[in-house]
C-alpha cells in the first residue's frame, strides 16, 4: 500500500484552514469547549483572539451561543469531540441550529473508535445517525486531510448548519493537492464492473487497499467515496447498483443510522441488489490503539475483502 502511506491530520488541517478563512472573512467566529489544543481551534485563537470564545466545559451552552451569534449574522464554527457534539448537545442542536437552519458549522474531532485509548466515553460511534436525523443538516465525513480542508472551506461559504466529523490520528491521504470537493457528490475513486464499495472517512483508504487483492483475482471493484452523508448522492448509488449489481458499505460507525442504513434505504427503494455492510455492528468499543481497535472490531481492508466475496456470491 505504498501509494497510501502518506498520512496527515484532519484536525490540524482544520485549525490551519480556519486561520486562512479568518483572514478572508471577519465574520467568522470560532467557539470551543475547553478542547482547543485537541480540536486545533487553538491555531485560530492565537491568530484572532477577539473572534474566538472558549465556552469552557459547557457544550450545551456553546451551541446556544453559536445560535445567537449566527442569528446576528456571524458564520460560526463550534468544536469539541464528536461524541459530545452529538450526544451531549442533541436537543440544543435540534432546537437552536437545525429547526431554525442557522449558519453554524459543528466541526467535531475524535470521531469514531480511532479516538482510541480514551475508550467508550470518547468514541463517537452514533454521531452520524444523530446528525443525519436532523432535517436540513449537512453531514460530511472527509476521507482525508485534503478533502477535509476543501469541505471546511465549502462549509464556510455555504449557508446553513453543518456537521463535519474529523479524526484524532493522522490518516492516509487518498487525494493529492488540487482535489476539488463538491458538496453532495460522491467521488469515484476507482472504476470496476463487478461490485461497488461505498465508503467514507478512513474506510476509503481501506476500501482501496481491499480492492488490490480482489483485482488480482479478477474481481473489479468500483470504489466510491461518499463524503457527504446528507444530502446523499442517490444518483451515484443507483448508478452503482445498476452497473455493478452488488454493494458493500464500509464505515466507522454503528450498524444503524449511518452510511450503511442510508445507502440501503436508497437501494431498497430504487434498485434492489445484494448488499453487505462493514461497520461496528451494535456494540461499544474498548480502549486501545486506533489500529488495534480497527483490527478488533473488523474495520479492516480484510473485512471489506471478505464482505465483497460474500456478497458477490448472491448476485
Amino acid at each position, binding site marked *: 500500500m505504498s501509494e497510501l502511506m502518506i498520512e496527515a491530520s484532519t484536525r490540524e488541517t482544520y485549525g490551519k484552514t480556519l486561520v486562512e478563512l479568518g483572514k478572508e472573512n471577519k465574520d467568522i467566529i470560532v467557539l470551543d469547549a475547553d478542547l482547543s489544543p485537541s480540536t486545533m481551534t487553538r491555531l485560530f485563537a492565537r491568530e484572532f483572539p477577539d473572534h474566538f470564545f472558549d465556552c469552557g466545559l459547557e457544550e450545551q451552552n456553546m451551541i446556544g*451561543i453559536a445560535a*445567537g451569534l449566527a442569528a446576528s449574522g456571524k458564520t460560526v464554527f463550534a468544536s469539541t469531540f464528536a461524541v459530545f457534539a452529538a450526544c451531549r448537545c442533541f436537543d440544543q442542536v435540534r432546537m437552536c441550529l437545525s429547526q*431554525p437552519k442557522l449558519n453554524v458549522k459543528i466541526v467535531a474531532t475524535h470521531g469514531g473508535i480511532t479516538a482510541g485509548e480514551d475508550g467508550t466515553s470518547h468514541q463517537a460511534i452514533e454521531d452520524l445517525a444523530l446528525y443525519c436525523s436532523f432535517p436540513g443538516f449537512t453531514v460530511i465525513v472527509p476521507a482525508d486531510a485534503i478533502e477535509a480542508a476543501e469541505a471546511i472551506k465549502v462549509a464556510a461559504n455555504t449557508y446553513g448548519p453543518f456537521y463535519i466529523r474529523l479524526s484524532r490520528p493522522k490518516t492516509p491521504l487518498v487525494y493529492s493537492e488540487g482535489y476539488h470537493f463538491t458538496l453532495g457528490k460522491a467521488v469515484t475513486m476507482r472504476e470496476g464492473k463487478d461490485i461497488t464499495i461505498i465508503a467514507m472517512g478512513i474506510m476509503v483508504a481501506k476500501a482501496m487497499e481491499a480492492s488490490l487483492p480482489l483485482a488480482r483475482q479478477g474481481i473489479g471493484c468500483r470504489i466510491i467515496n461518499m463524503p457527504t452523508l446528507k444530502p446523499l448522492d442517490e444518483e451515484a448509488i443507483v448508478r452503482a447498483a445498476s452497473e455493478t449489481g452488488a454493494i458493500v458499505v464500509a464505515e466507522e460507525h454503528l450498524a444503524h443510522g449511518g452510511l450503511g442504513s442510508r445507502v440501503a434505504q436508497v437501494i431498497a427503494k430504487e434498485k434492489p441488489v445484494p448488499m453487505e455492510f462493514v461497520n461496528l455492528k451494535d456494540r461499544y468499543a474498548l480502549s486501545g490503539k486506533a489500529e488495534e481497535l480497527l483490527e478488533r472490531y473488523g474495520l479492516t481492508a480484510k473485512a471489506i475483502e471478505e464482505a465483497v466475496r460474500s456478497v458477490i456470491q448472491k448476485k
Partner: protein
Amino acid sequence: MENTELKEMANKLRRHVIIMTATAGSGHPGGSLSAADIITALYFKVMRHNPGNPQWQDRDRFILSKGHAAPVLYAALAESGYFPIEELRTLRKLDSRLQGHTDRNLTPGVEMSAGSLGMGLSFAIGVALAARLNAKDYWTYVLLGDGECQEGQTWEAALSAAHFRLDNLTAIVDRNRIQLTGWTRDIMNLEPLSLKWQAFGWHVIEINGHDFNQILTALEEARKIKSQPTVVIAHTIKGKGVSFMENNPAFHGKAPTLEEAERALKELERRELR
C-alpha cells in the same frame, strides 16, 4: 406610554391570552399572565424596535426563553403591529404562523425557536456577543421562568455571561414560584435564588413584576451597570389578573373553557375600569 396606558395595554394582552388559549383549546395561560406586565414594559416603553422591519439590525432583542409563554409574546407583537391582531385567534391551528411554542422561522418579531426550556440565556449570550463584535448598541433582553432555572444549562450560561462581562444583556426571571406541577419550593427548591445569581457574578435587582414603576426603574438601572450582566428577579403571580387562575398550577398548561374564559374576561374588564 404613561404607566396608566401601560396598565391598560397589559390588561389587553391578558385578554388576548385568555381568548387565544380558549379558542385554541390548549396552551399556557398561567405563565403568560404572570409575564404580561414585564413584556408590556419591554415592547411598549423600553425597547427600540420597528414592527415594520422585524430584521432591523439595530433593534433591541427580546428572547423568550420560557417559550410556552408564546401567547403573551404574540399578543404584544400583534399589538405592536408585527402582524394583524385577528391572526391571534389562529394560535396553535394548522398552518398558523403562531405555533404552540415560538418559532423564529415563522413569526415576524420572534427571535428564537424555544419550548425546550433552558436554552434562551445561551442564545441571548450569542446575540449580545455579536453586538459587541459588531460595535452595535442594541440591548439584549431574555425572559426565563423560575422553574426553568432548574435546568443545568441556565447555570452554564449564567457563568459564561458573567465571564464574558456582558453588560449589554439583561435577564429577567419571572419568579411566579410555580412550575408545571406545583410550587418550585416543593418540587426543586431554588432559594436563595438571588444569592445564586450574585455568586455567579451577576448584578441582581429584585422587584415586584407587576409594578410598572419598579419594572422600568430596574430595567433602567440594568443599563447603567458596567462589566457585568444584570438579572431582574421579578416577583410575580402566576395567572395574574384572573382570580381562579392566580397561584393555581392547574392553569399552567391548561386552556380555560369558554365559560371560564368569559368569567376571566369579565374580571379583566373590571380591572381596566378601576
